[in-house]
Every structure is written in C-alpha cells, then in structure tokens.
C-alpha cells in the first residue's frame, strides 16, 4: 500500500474515532481545570466528568449509524461488538463517578486527579474493546493496567492502599511480560501481528502445535490477569480489599469486561474459522484451545467459590465471588457459537448491575459503621432496611435465583453450553454445583443482616440513609429485578452485538 493511501485511511478513520477523541479532549480539559480549581475543593471536577461522559455517550450511540469498519489501517475495529462494550464501560464510569461523589473514603482529598485518571482508564477500556492488532491490544492493556495501579493507590496515606497498588503493579508487569513473550512466539510462527492475518496464516499453514500451544498459554496469562481467572487471580483479593471501594467496584467490572472483549475477539478471530451457516466458529485443528479455556473456567469458578466461604471481610468475599463470576462468563466463550458469545455479553451486563449494587451497599455500610466485616453487619436490616433489602436482591441475583437478572444470565450461559453438545456436559455440572456453593456464602451475609441479633455495645437506633443513596440503590436494584422478569430488550441488544468484523 502506498504511503498516501495509508495517510488517507488514517484521516478518514478520525470520523469513526470520535468517542475516543472526545474522551482524550475531556482528559486534557480536566487536567487544566484541575489546575485552575485546585484551591477550592469543589464538586466541579465530577460535574465536568459527568457532562463529558454524556457527550461521549451520544458519540458512541452515533457510531451505530456509521456502520462497521476497520480503522487506522486495521489497528482498531468499529463494530457492534465494540460499541456494546463501550456503552457498558461508559455506564460503569458514570456510576462509579456517582459512587465516588458519595464516598467518605475519598472526601477530604484532592479528587481532581482521581476523576482525570478514571477518564483515562475509560479510554483504555474503549481501546481494549476495539483492538484488532497485537500492538493495540498490548498498548490498551498497559494503559488500563498502569492507570489502575495509580487509582488503587489513591489513598496513599493508608498503608493498605499502597500495598494493594504495589502487589497489583508487580503482578501486572509480570503477567504482561508473559503475554508479550507469547505474542512474540506467535509473531515468529505467523510473521504478522494483525489478528485477522494471524487467523488466515494459521488456518492455511501447518504450524508447530507445541510452539502454538506455549504461545497461546502465555498470551492467556495476560488476558487471564485482566479477568482475574485462575491461575492469575492472586492479585485480586488483596487489591479489592486495599483499594478505595468505588475503584474496587470499577475494577471488578470495567477491566474484567474489557478482558472478555479481548479474549472473545482474539480467540474467535485469530484461532478459529468462522462457519457462517451454522453461526459458529471452529477451533483450529492443531490446537484445542476451547478445552484449555474450559479447564480454566472450571478451576476459576471452583476456586473462587470455595475460598469465598472462608472470608470474613465482605469486600474480600465479593472479590472471590467476582473471580467465580469470571469463570461463569467464560462458559460462553468455550462453546464457540454466536449463542455462547451472546450469553457472555448478556451476563456481563447483568453482572454490571448486581455487582456494582453489592459494592455500593458495602460502601454505604462502610461509610456509616466504619467496617466491612461480616460480624459487624449483624442486625443491620432492622437499622437500615432499604440498603439491606437491596443487598438481598443483589446477592440473590449473584447466586442466580429467579426472579432476578442473575438467573436469566446464568440460564443463557448454561443453555449455550448444553446446546454445544456432550463434550461440555461436565463443565455444566461443575457450574451448577458451584452455584449451590455460592448460595451458602451469600446467605451468610444475608443471615448476619436479617436474622442475627445486633452485637452488644452497638446502639440499635436506625441509621440515616440519605436520599442520594436510596436513588442510586434504586437505579441499580430495579433493573436487577426488572431484567429478571422482562429481558427481551437487553437480549436483543446483546444478540445484535455479537457481530464483529469481518466475520459476518
């Protein structure tokens, strides 16, 4: 391709890159605004971030009309798949901004950089969802990781927070080193870094399967770190416990969903062939990666759930539960059908509501009673009925009980798994057994809140819950139930978003 064509393609791509460009502009604006507003601790930074997010939201929705296209010389893709994830990330960011405004942990600190970093993190997630080239995948993952390190450490006067950030940084650097070595082997096998070309080369040529296996396992280290799957989950409980709770909530959804976007795109494009008639992918013959991911999924679910049983700290318990949920969502990836991808996308949205909701209740109680231990949650239902009932809804949904959204999400995942044939029946059984285990430890929190007596020495008077909190709880809690009863619109959106370039 001539140089002029390359330049022309870059310039034409700018139009499709509008949400990311706006986000970059917003970040620059916020850095300047922070300098000007530094003296007064004002709510302006959060307001700028919210208005900016609103503008970006319109730009993303507008992308549906532009149609699917590969931009910047096949570095990024704009398609329904990436737009879906961008909407999910932006929704996460907006809610986390609202949670951060309310958070007591952050009050009294300068929050200018906090919101700026949050918006840069969102930009990184956008890039992860649309990356189609190993360089962009790597840069996007690094952008997300490095900003997360800084955000986790934001309460730097608290030693727990610094310790969490440091552990996160070392695990992150280590796993990205492993991923890069995997990418370099893949590059050596194929001679290209574009995932579509990698797919073509691997399909057309007999490559050394051992080298390919090693490279895929190493690449999975980097991706697995992002979604916190076994055996790259070690960072997650410590980081979730030490980080400011709004950031914990963000990390349990944003980077995790972005990791799924990268995994689905990479494995389905680079390591499988698409069969348009049957609407499913076929894994390359010389590497059985669906079985590898199936084993990872089973191990992730089981470990997350079993270790969660022994936890006394609610934030740590939710950390292990979110590891387990990454395992559930992987079920949709192993079956390699549109139905499976669709189930994963649906589950991620459902997970967004229920998990953010659960973390938000923890934030509320943490701010008021100053503790996140299950023992200190005793009798809270009588002191603060609204958050306690909301917590009940979120935990039922996380378990997967009807009539909540979590039930529908799990139903789709298991349906896709069963439909894929007897090869994966064992995985479905492991998944169902895990749901039972999960019920036990979620019920422990509920039992403490609803049935245990208030501990001695704690005054039984009702807690004051501000209307702001109640509104946010409603925003998260009502969809959790509503989607469980009427899920057609969300299901339509998810099935529409399975399409990614250029397999359809």
């Amino acid at each position, binding site marked *: 391709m001539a140089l002029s064509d390359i330049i022309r393609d870059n310039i034409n791509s700018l139009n499709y890159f509008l949400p990311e460009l706006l986000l970059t502009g917003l970040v620059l604006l916020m850095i300047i605004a922070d300098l000007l507003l530094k003296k007064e601790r004002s709510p302006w930074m959060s307001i700028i971030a919210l208005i900016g997010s609103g503008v970006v939201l319109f730009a993303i929705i507008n992308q549906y009309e532009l149609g699917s296209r590969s931009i910047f010389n096949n570095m990024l893709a704009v398609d329904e798949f990436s737009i879906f994830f961008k909407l999910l990330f932006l929704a996460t960011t907006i809610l986390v901004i609202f949670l951060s405004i309310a958070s007591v942990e952050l009050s009294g600190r300068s929050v200018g950089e906090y919101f700026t970093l949050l918006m840069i993190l969102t930009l990184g997630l956008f890039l992860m969802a649309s990356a189609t080239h*190993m*360089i962009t995948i*790597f*840069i996007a993952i*690094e952008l997300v*990781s*490095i900003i997360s*390190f*800084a955000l986790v*450490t934001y309460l*730097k006067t608290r*030693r*727990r927070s*610094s*310790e*969490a*950030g*440091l*552990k996160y*940084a*070392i695990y*992150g*650097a*280590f796993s*990205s*080193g*492993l991923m*890069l*070595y995997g*990418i*370099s*082997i893949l*590059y*050596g096998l194929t*001679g*290209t*870094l574009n995932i579509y070309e990698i797919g073509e080369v691997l399909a057309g040529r007999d490559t050394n399967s051992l080298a390919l296996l090693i490279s895929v396992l190493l690449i999975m280290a980097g991706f697995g770190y992002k979604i916190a799957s076994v055996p790259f989950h070690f960072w997650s*409980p*410590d980081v979730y*416990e*030490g980080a400011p709770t709004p950031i914990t909530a963000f990390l349990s959804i944003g980077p995790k969903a972005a990791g799924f976007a990268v995994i689905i795109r990479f494995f389905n494009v680079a390591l499988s062939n698409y069969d348009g008639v049957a609407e499913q992918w076929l894994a390359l013959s010389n590497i059985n990666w669906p079985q590898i991911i199936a084993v990872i999924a089973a191990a992730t679910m089981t470990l997350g759930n079993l270790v969660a049983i022994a936890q006394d700290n609610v934030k*740590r318990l939710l950390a292990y539960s979110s590891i387990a949920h990454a395992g559930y969502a992987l079920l949709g990836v192993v079956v390699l059908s549109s139905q499976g991808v669709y189930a994963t996308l649906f589950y991620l949205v459902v997970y967004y509501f229920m998990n953010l909701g659960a973390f938000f209740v923890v934030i509320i109680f943490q701010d008021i009673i100053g503790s996140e231990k299950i023992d200190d949650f005793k009798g809270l239902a009588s002191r603060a009925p609204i958050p306690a009932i909301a917590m009940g809804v979120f935990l039922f949904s996380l378990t997967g009980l009807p009539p909540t959204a979590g039930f529908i999400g799990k139903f789709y995942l298991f349906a896709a798994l069963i439909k894929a044939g007897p090869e994966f029946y064992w995985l479905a059984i492991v998944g169902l057994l895990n749901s039972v285990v999960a019920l036990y430890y979620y019920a422990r929190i509920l039992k403490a809140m609803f049935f245990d007596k208030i501990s001695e020495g704690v005054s039984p008077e009702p807690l004051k819950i501000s209307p702001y909190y109640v509104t946010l709880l409603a925003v998260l809690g009502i969809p959790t139930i509503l989607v469980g009863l009427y899920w057609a619109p969300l299901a339509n959106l998810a099935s529409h978003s399975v399409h990614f370039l250029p397999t359809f």
Partner: protein
Amino acid sequence: MIPASYYLYLSAILFVLGIIGVLVRRNLILILISIELMLNAVNLTFVTFSNYWGVYDGQVFVLFIMVAASAQVGVGLALVKTIFKKKAIVDVDKFNLLGQ
C-alpha cells in the same frame, strides 16, 4: 552470519532467568529489574523474528514495549518510594497487611 535460532535460545534463557528472578528474589527493586530482563528477552525475540520475516512491525512493537515498560517501572518505583517513606522495607514478604 549467526543463525536466528541462536538469538532465540539466548532470549529464551534470558526470559527464564527473568521469571526465576521474579519468583525467587524478595527485594522489590530486584523484582522490578527481573521484570525488565523478561521484557528485554521479548524485545530480542521480536527483533529476531522481524529480521527473519523481513517485515518491520516486530521492530515497531519493540519501541512500544520500551515505552510501556518505562511507564510501568515509573509507576512501580513511585509505589516503592511511597511505601518506603512510611516504613523502610523493600522485602516483599513483609507486605502482609492485607488478607488478615
């Protein structure tokens, strides 16, 4: 002309040394240095394969890795310094506040 496989052996050895360093060393600074060693092994592999295939995107990747690695080390060292200021330790086994 040295065959490409020699470079690959060298980079594999460097990479494994880096991994061993991360797993065995208990000093934070040395862990960061070991991670650098891993990344440099990756760089060597990329340059070798880039030369082998006669295309340059591998070498471009190396530049990106260098930039990202320095950003990562920048944040990593800043974190080490924050912790060191409060309590003068660089031994990772002493970081055990969380999870108790």
